[in-house]
């Protein structure tokens, strides 16, 4: 079993994993808080892309009944869409929380660099 044929079929999933890794490393390693939040959003969006890709079936349509109920085979699976919506709600609220914390820290220390804030805090203590 080689990776070749799988990769050419699932190249979009591979892209979403690479995006996830980019977002993850940004959230972990960037010093700037705003860049961290951007990383968080890239990471979450990559997961939604992955879910949406897995939920899609070639040749079928979105599960919205237009003219009378058709058979089940006509539609794609609606659950990944629901999961993505829930995930978006969660990610919006944590982004808002992070942004508000960033504003608070910026007003106090006039910098967005987390390490610099830590140094300032240590100075404040002594």
């Amino acid at each position, binding site marked *: 079993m080689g990776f070749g044929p799988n990769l050419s079929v699932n190249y979009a999933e591979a892209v979403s994993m690479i995006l996830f890794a980019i977002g993850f490393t940004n959230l972990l390693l960037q010093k700037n808080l705003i860049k961290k939040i951007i990383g968080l959003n890239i990471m979450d969006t990559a997961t939604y892309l992955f879910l949406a890709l897995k939920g899609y079936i070639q040749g079928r349509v979105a599960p919205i009944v237009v003219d009378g109920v058709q058979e089940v085979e006509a539609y794609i699976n609606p659950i990944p869409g629901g999961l993505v919506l829930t995930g978006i709600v969660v990610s919006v609220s944590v982004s808002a*929380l992070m942004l508000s914390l960033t504003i608070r820290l910026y007003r106090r220390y006039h910098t967005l660099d987390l390490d610099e804030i830590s140094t300032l805090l240590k100075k404040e203590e002594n």
Partner: protein
Amino acid sequence: MDFVQNIPFFSILLSLFSGTVTSMVNGKWAKRINAFIITVIMAMSTVLLFYLLGTKESYTFMMGHFPAPWGNEIRAGVLEALMALFFCIIMLLSLVGGRGHLEREIAPSKQNLYYILINLLLSSLLALIYTNDLFTAYVFVEINTISACGLIMIRQNGHTFEAAVRYMIMSLLGSGLLLLGICILYDCTGHLLMSNIKSSIIMMAATGDYHIPLVVAIAFICVGLAIKSALFPFHSWLPNAYGYSTASSAAILSSLVSKGYIFLLIKICYRVIGWEVILSSKVIHILFLFGLCGMIMGSLSAISENDIRRMIAFSSVAQIGYIYMGIGLGTLEGMTASIYHILSHAATKSLLFIAAVGLTDTSGQSKKFIDLTGAAYRNKPAGIAFTVGALSMVGIPGFSGFISKLLFGTACIQNTPYKMLPTLICLGISTILNAIYFMKTVIRIYTPVKSPYDNMPVKKSFRYAGALVCFVILNIVLGMCSTPIVNMIQMGLKMFS
């Protein structure tokens, strides 16, 4: 269906509902409503626990009107009810013990907000305990994170904001991995309910399909939850978050929030992936290794710490290492020891945080050891309680910590030599290190010296002393009557599979 079976659903909903009610009243009423609701949930969990001990089997509760593969489900067994009861007790005692500080450290206009966060936290913990649906678990993990972040930053100063940001960053990394793991599992199996996923995974493991995605998903979920519960290399946010937040928050965060995630991980191991598949995937060896490192490194950091609250926080890192070590042993005995340690550590660590706050109060709010010299004479209940907590953490017979060390010891002796030797060595070293930093602190607070704080009036609070007495009793009960609790844990674990 018996009426008692509605209890898990009622407790989650009651807690959520009281959150909305407390947002509309002032701080004083919010406090009363909150205490009342926690007591009610505690009583209901007790009833549920006895009911389940009577029926001896777990049950699933259908949410809404759709049956298994489509609808959402709640599941309750002995272990879940025990956890819910225990979490309610700890939460109530931590709130009562830290109430004086809450009233001083949080602006009066924001008092009721604190209780909203507590209610949200409790409901999310209960949901994590009871849910039978992976995606519901993910959503409540996020609610848990957000409310825990609020608990850290409600005492507003630079330190807590920085700690909250660091906490959020680590937590979000963890929940990102958890979400991705859940998505991969969903894509492989086509289900979100734990029992359905498990039957699909057993089939997949038998045929060998999707082997790599399955291992990747297990790794993502384990690592994600390990990051969220501050396993050793991911603990950088923890000392500041526990050290600078208000006392009740520190007690609740260390004893409940991180434990909720560990409980979810145990539940996923048994109920979603299945114990055999977890064992064959070898992911738990990594948890075992990091657990061992955490046991040593956490204690070493605690020894070099000069601040009593941060010292207790680093001790938490070591104790979480113990729990992961027990899970990593990969046996029923190891798992029992881990779950017992979740209870024992929760009871002891919240006691230590609440007692430490009493000691710092009589030392001019300083958390430095040099100012704490002789503090136990200035605040006698706090001194005694701190000593009890310290003895329990070290593992002196009669207190809860001894039983968990005993269980860990027996569990690793029954294991293969590859895991037995390192575990026993690390257990020994870690116990000695524990003894060094806790006994150092106890000796310091009982050193009779003249101190500038001697003549400061000490505000006597019966509420505070009462909470400490309850904590001490809880500790001794866990230490003295461990057999029924261990039996309950084993019965609950049997119900899992």
